């Protein structure tokens, strides 16, 4: 849904005749060019998953992180211009730190996301600066308030969610997230589903290699936000790979069946399917 705002899109301090601020909308388009990040809240925690595209084989594994720690109990997953996201993570860290220094306890996530959203919004008011070209998802876990998930976008708006997605495949990811019953799931179950969703929305044709960055915060980590431990991540990726390959195989079979319309050929394909499934599970 692209439109050109000729003449009214040169600065963030200008409205268009139909009441839009084009610079902010262009900033959101910058987010849509980046790879997907999702965050889902379950009954005892929050899980983040980021599809980190590997642009060069020379990159060290685990470098160019897209998930940041804002405070001990708060994590932040980003999409969009990474440099903008990094500077905003510093802003969020300072807010959380000042709050703790003044009031002696962990910053509530609703308040933190409102403060950072206010900061992002300030950059959409003046022509001297450009809006931030990144969206981010904040998640936290507190013993009394439970898990919380908030998303902030370049316009400076923040909402609370049970599940949200940002980046190029956000529509597809949202559809997958809506299928989940996250209110009844635990973090351990959710980690596998998050990995599965990232694998599903990843476009094998356009973007080849990617690294899955997973992090969580919840009762399972005692309220501390951290990257998912390696063994759990490996297990989640295995589950994700099985699910996505099964789906594509089944998809392939149904297509062939419709094309051939013959039960004999269907029987043969069924055998092949069983064998390949077995080999994968092993």
């Amino acid at each position: 849904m692209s439109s050109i705002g000729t003449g009214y899109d040169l600065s963030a301090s200008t409205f268009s005749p139909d009441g839009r601020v084009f610079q902010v909308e262009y900033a959101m388009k910058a987010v849509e060019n980046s790879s997907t990040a999702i965050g889902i809240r379950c009954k005892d925690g929050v899980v983040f998953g980021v599809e980190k595209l590997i642009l060069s084989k020379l990159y060290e594994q685990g470098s160019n992180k897209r998930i940041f720690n804002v405070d001990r109990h708060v994590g932040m997953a980003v999409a969009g211009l990474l440099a903008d996201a990094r500077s905003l993570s510093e802003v969020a860290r300072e807010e959380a730190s000042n709050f703790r220094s003044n009031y002696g306890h962990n910053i509530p996530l609703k308040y933190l996301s409102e403060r950072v959203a206010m900061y992002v919004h300030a950059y959409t008011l003046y022509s001297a600066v450009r809006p931030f070209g990144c969206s981010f998802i904040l998640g936290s876990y507190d013993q009394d308030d439970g898990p919380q998930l908030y998303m902030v976008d370049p316009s400076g708006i923040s909402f609370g969610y049970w599940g949200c997605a940002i980046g190029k495949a956000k529509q597809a990811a949202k559809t997958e997230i809506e299928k989940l019953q996250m209110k009844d799931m635990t973090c351990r179950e959710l980690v596998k589903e998050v990995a599965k969703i990232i694998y599903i929305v990843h476009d094998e044709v356009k973007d080849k290699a990617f690294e899955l960055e997973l992090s969580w915060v919840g009762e399972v980590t005692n309220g501390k936000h951290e990257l998912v431990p390696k063994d759990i991540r490996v297990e989640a990726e295995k589950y994700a790979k099985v699910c996505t390959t099964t789906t594509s195989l089944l998809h392939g079979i149904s297509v062939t069946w419709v094309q051939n319309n013959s039960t004999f050929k269907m029987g043969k394909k069924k055998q092949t399917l069983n064998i390949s499934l077995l080999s994968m599970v092993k």
Partner: protein
Amino acid sequence: MEIDFMDSQIKGVSTGTTILAVTFNGGVIIGSDSRASIGGYYVSSKTINKLIQVHDRIFCCIAGSLADAQAVTKAAKFQISFHSIQMESPPLVKAAASVLKELCYNNKEELQAGFITAGWDRKKGPQVYTVALGGMLLSQPFTIGGSGSTYIYGYADAKYKPDMSREECLQFATNALALAMGRDNVSGGVAHLVVITEEGVEHVVIPGDKLPKFHDE
């Protein structure tokens, strides 16, 4: 209670008051005497209120220089009120105590005031915090402060029990104040007590002649 520098050159000496706060099962009682004195020679007020309400369920009692304490609590009351509106929920007692602590610590050169903050919040229930002269913040089940407190440390340590009922706690606090006011020359007047629970806040004022009497009086 202006500072008489002849008498209190050592920093850390509280002057002219008895204050206390005690948690019980379901709430907290905060209490003080009502005497303001100048240098221990002249009672400048017999009925001063040392219990300041900083929010709906959070009270603060003051010790030390009255001027300093009033200035600090005024600033703290504003900050806590603003914080509570921004957060869209009542403030935590810890947050209120932290605000006081920041004011005391950052201005420790100029100020000579100590506080006891007590209140009730949804997260941790009834709590008591001491903010000492230089800005130390400490959480305790009960605490006593002011010059009169030195005379009742034994009584408080012996008679305090965790999880008291409201009546037991009220009796404990009244007795403690009465004993301190009986021995400390710069504490006296009436006993002000405030009972803070989830339901609300109740003021109890006990005039000097209605205070419990102990056998040596």
